[in-house]
C-alpha cells in the first residue's frame, strides 16, 4: 500500500515541478505527517529538491506548528539564510525536541554561509 502512495508522491512532485501549482506541493507537505517512515522521507527529499518553491509552504507549516521538528530541519536544508529569523524563536521552544531541532537548523544555516 505505501509503495503506491510513494509512487503518488513522485507523481505529485513531478506535477508540482511542471505546473507550479501549490496544490501538488501541499500533498508532499501533508505526507510529512505520514506514519510510514518511507513516505515521510520521500516527501521530505522531494520538498528539498523543489527548492525555493517549497519555502512558502514550509513557512506556512511552521506558523501552524505542523510536523515540527522536521519542518524546521527542511527549512534549513533549503539553505536560504532569510528563514533564520523565522527559525530562531523556536530555539527556546518549550518542547526540547523542537528547540534542539531549531538550534541544529541555525547551525546548518550558519555553516552554509
Amino acid at each position, binding site marked *: 500500500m505505501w509503495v503506491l502512495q510513494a509512487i503518488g508522491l513522485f507523481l505529485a512532485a513531478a506535477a508540482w515541478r511542471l505546473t507550479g501549482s501549490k496544490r501538488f506541493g501541499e500533498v508532499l507537505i501533508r505526507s510529512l505527517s505520514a506514519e510510514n517512515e518511507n513516505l515521510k522521507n520521500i516527501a521530505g527529499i522531494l520538498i528539498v529538491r523543489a527548492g525555493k518553491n517549497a519555502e512558502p509552504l514550509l513557512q506556512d507549516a511552521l506558523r501552524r506548528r505542523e510536523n515540527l521538528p522536521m519542518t524546521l530541519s*527542511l527549512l534549513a536544508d533549503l539553505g536560504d539564510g532569510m528563514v533564520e529569523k523565522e527559525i530562531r524563536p523556536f530555539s527556546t521552544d518549550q518542547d526540547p525536541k523542537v528547540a534542539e531541532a531549531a538550534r541544529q537548523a541555525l547551525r546548518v544555516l550558519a555553516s552554509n554561509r
Partner: protein
Amino acid sequence: MPFQIVPEPVAGPLSFSRSDDAAILTQAAVLLAIGAQLRGDNKRFRLASVPSAASAAILDEELKPLGLPALPESPGRIDSAHNRQMLFSRYNLPIPSQAVLTETVIEDLNVFADVAKTYFSEGSSKSAIDLMELCLRHRNELVRVSAAAAYSEHSSELDRLIRILEAGTHSAEDLVRSISATALALAAPDHARLKEMEGTTRRTGAAGARDTTMLIHGTWAQNSPWWQPGGDFHSYILRSVRPDLYSQPDRFGWSGGYSDAARALAATDLGTWVQNHNEQGLDLITHSHGGNVAFLVTQNGLDLGELILLSCPVHVPKYQPDMAHARKQVVSIRVHFDLVILADRGGQRFNFPGVTENVLPIWFDHFATHRPDVWRHHNVPAMI
C-alpha cells in the same frame, strides 16, 4: 606540518620546477594519476560500472586542470635498471651501483622540470616512466612515495619501491603515511611493517579506549527511538550482536539535515566526540546518509574501525570512504530498489573497491535494514 589547502593545482610541468606546497601536492597528484593511467584504472572502472555512476578512478574534469596528457595502458614491467642508466646518463647524474641501497637525492630541480616538460609535451609511456624513476630521488618524501606508489606495477625493481614506501610509513606527515601504507598494502600485502602498524593501532586503542561500536542515524531520524539506548534496534544490537555498543546518554547524534552542509557539520562533530571520548578505531553501524557522514569522517583523517552501512545512498565520489582511515571491513547491507534512495537520486549499489555489498531479498523499504526481525530472519549478523 600538514600541507596547506590547495585551491587550484599548478598546471603542466611548471609544478616540477617548484617546491612550495601547491607544487609538491600537484607533483604527487600527477605521479599518482600517471600510475592509474598506466594501470588502465579508468578503463577498468568504466567497464565495471553502470553508465550513470560516476565511477571512473579519476574524473576527467579533475585531470583537466593538471594538463595531463592521455596515456595508453602499460604493457607490463619495464627494465628499470636499464632505463635509469639511460636517463641518468642523459643528465650526467651519478649512476649508483646495485649494491647501494640508499637513494641519493637529486637536488637540481631543473632536471625534474626538464623530464616533466618532455612528459607533458610527448605524453608517452617512456617519458612517464622517466618521470616516476627520477621522482624516486626527489627531496620531498611525498613526491618520493607517490612515485613509488605509481611505479609499483610497472618497475622491475619492486623491492626498491617497497623500501621507499616502508620508509614513508614512518613519516610524521599523515598524507605521506596514508599513501605509503595504502600502496604498501597493494604491492606487498604481507609486509611486516603493515602488521606492525596494525599492532600499534590496536595497542594504542586498547590503552586509550574501549572497543566501541556506535549507531549513527540518517536523515530526519534524530528523534527516532530505534537508534537510541532503549530503542528496539539499539537493544537488539546490544543484546545479540555487539555487547560493546555505546549506550550512555551522551551518545553521538546529529541534526539529520538533508544537505551537504548538515552532513559536513555532523562529520566534524563526530570527530570532536571521538576525541573527547578518547576513542580510537570506533566501529560504526550507520543508516542511510549516516553512512555518508562516516565517509566524511574518514576523509577528515579520523581512523574508524568496522563500518557497517545500512541502506546507504551511493554518491561517489562526493561521499566515499578514505580506505586509509577505514581500518577494518566496510560492509553495505541494503534492499532491492530502495524508494527513498530513488528520491534522493543516489546510486543503489556501491561499485567501490573495499566495500562489500549484501542485498537482502526485500524490496523498496529503506528502513527494513534497521529492523531487528529483519536482522534475525535474514541472519544479517553473519554478513558483518
